[in-house]
């Protein structure tokens, strides 16, 4: 049994310590917002936050997560009450199929918390490990920029991390 801290909640998981976090999130904890893309740490769809850093959950074994904080897309907000980035992605309609978006949002959230004054160049650099085959890139960049500006003009719980 391994205890994980996911979105501020302690969660008991009965799985092999080598199991990638992604499978535990989706199959054991039913947090299906995090996506399986390539399983090789190459596409970014599975990105979540661990202790404030964006990581690929498909190559993060749960054995390294004792006493660390995992945050997923579900930890940012709900349909009724979306988080800052989720709101910005809706406002910019920054998704086509949407499959890669939770991973993009999680890396953008890590950027927003670490560097609220990030420039457009920072946003491009930060999102460079993520693939989107729909071609929604320009809207995605706009959405992240919008969220960063919103966080700067009105710092909210989102910018500091809702569950911490």
């Amino acid at each position, binding site marked *: 049994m391994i205890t994980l801290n996911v979105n501020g909640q302690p969660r008991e998981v009965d799985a092999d*310590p*080598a*199991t*990638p976090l992604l499978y535990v999130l989706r199959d054991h904890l039913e947090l299906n917002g995090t996506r399986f893309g*390539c*399983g*090789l*740490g*190459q596409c970014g769809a599975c990105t979540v936050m*661990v*202790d404030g*850093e*964006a*990581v*690929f959950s*498909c*190559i*993060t*074994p*749960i*054995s*390294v997560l004792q006493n*660390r904080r995992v945050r997923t897309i579900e930890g940012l907000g709900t349909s009724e009450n979306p988080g800052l980035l989720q709101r910005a992605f809706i406002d910019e309609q920054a998704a086509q199929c949407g499959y890669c978006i939770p991973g993009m949002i999680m*890396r953008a959230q890590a950027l927003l918390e*670490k560097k609220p004054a990030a420039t457009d160049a920072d946003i491009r*650099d*930060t999102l*460079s*490990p993520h693939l989107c085959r729909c071609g929604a890139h320009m809207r995605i960049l706009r959405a992240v920029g919008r969220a960063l500006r919103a966080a700067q003009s009105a710092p909210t719980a989102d910018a500091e991390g809702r569950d911490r």
Partner: protein
Amino acid sequence: MGALRGQSWKYAAAPTRGAAIVVVVAALWALGWQPALAATVSLPGAAFDPAAVEKGAQLAAIGNCKSCHTAPNGKPYAGGRALSTPFGTIYGSNITPDPESGIGNWSQAEFMRAMREGVDRRGRHIYPAFPYDHYTRVNAEDVDAIYAFLMTREPVRAAPPPNELAFPFNIRSLVGIWKLLYFHAGPLQPNAAENEQWNRGAYLVEGLAHCGACHTPRNFLGAEIKSRAFNGGQAEGWQTPALDASSAASSPWTVERLYAYLRQGIDDVHDVTAGPMAPIVHDLSRVSADDVRAIATYVASFGAGQTPRPTSQNAATELPASGRGAAIYAGACASCHDLGREVHGGALKLSLSTAVAMPQPDNLIRIVRQGIVPAAGESGPWMPAFAGVLTDAQLTDLAIYLRTRFGERAAWDDLAGAIEKIAPNPSTP
């Protein structure tokens, strides 16, 4: 008065000693600079033969001039790249033809002198971070071709920041003494016992490609230790692997493998290019196949990977850290590295890796933390970064496991120290 008299006694023998000091200082001063050459007017780009420009482009790629003379995200050859050395930070100069901040006013003869004698246009010594100890082996025709190439680049007005060197290394004239000790001007003598391809490779490797600048260890004054040529050195915080028989490679570096590695960044049985080697391979991918094959021929003759790895007795010992590391490997690494290169999406089996078998853990630590990420907009070998995934303790466990299981060697002595020394870079994706 007594005290003064005492002092006058002390200095009674001073005239002869003083004269000697004057002579030595004068000699050092004379060593410290060279006269400027006669001023000339720079030629317009159109004056250069396109064939020379094209040849110069290839040679500049072999010399990898761009790496040191381009700032991150900066204009090509406009300088400003910080090179950290044990003596302080040196900034790559602007070698675009801008007359103010670049080399636009440099004559062909001045450029030749800089390349082959390490003296700038004003007659000052150039710090040997610019590897003129190698470029002195380059023939005049090739230097002129590089001149033609550089003089036809886009001029960029950009002055690099002043160097930040500690005393006494900030005294430029002292480079004259360094040269007296370590700089041996002149061409490389061909080896009649070897064929033309080998000799072409030697000319390129010892000259323009300056491979030894990173792959040969340096002494306390930053000079290459010639008796240990290609024994492995350092570059930008990375340990450069040995290219000779002391290499930790588990498979022989044949001409074919070196050729593939140098042109594509990957061969069938060795690690991919990483760190400062990546931009070099990127440059070499554009160079004529014949020259890359010549380089491969010469380097292969050093015999890297020919001798089987000495297996340590201790390596087989099951350490507790190794068990924890095995679980990390299984969840973080195995999905690619257990497959091997034969399978699409698979990566090198780590029993073939040099990084896990090298004398120092530095490269492995850097690769695991930063991943292997091509420069923006460029293609190349790729591995995800694990900086945010693994804590320092977990990285230690993983490194011990990889070292003992795949490197078949005892754990590195000061692994934790190396992990602490090499600052994590969690902002890298």
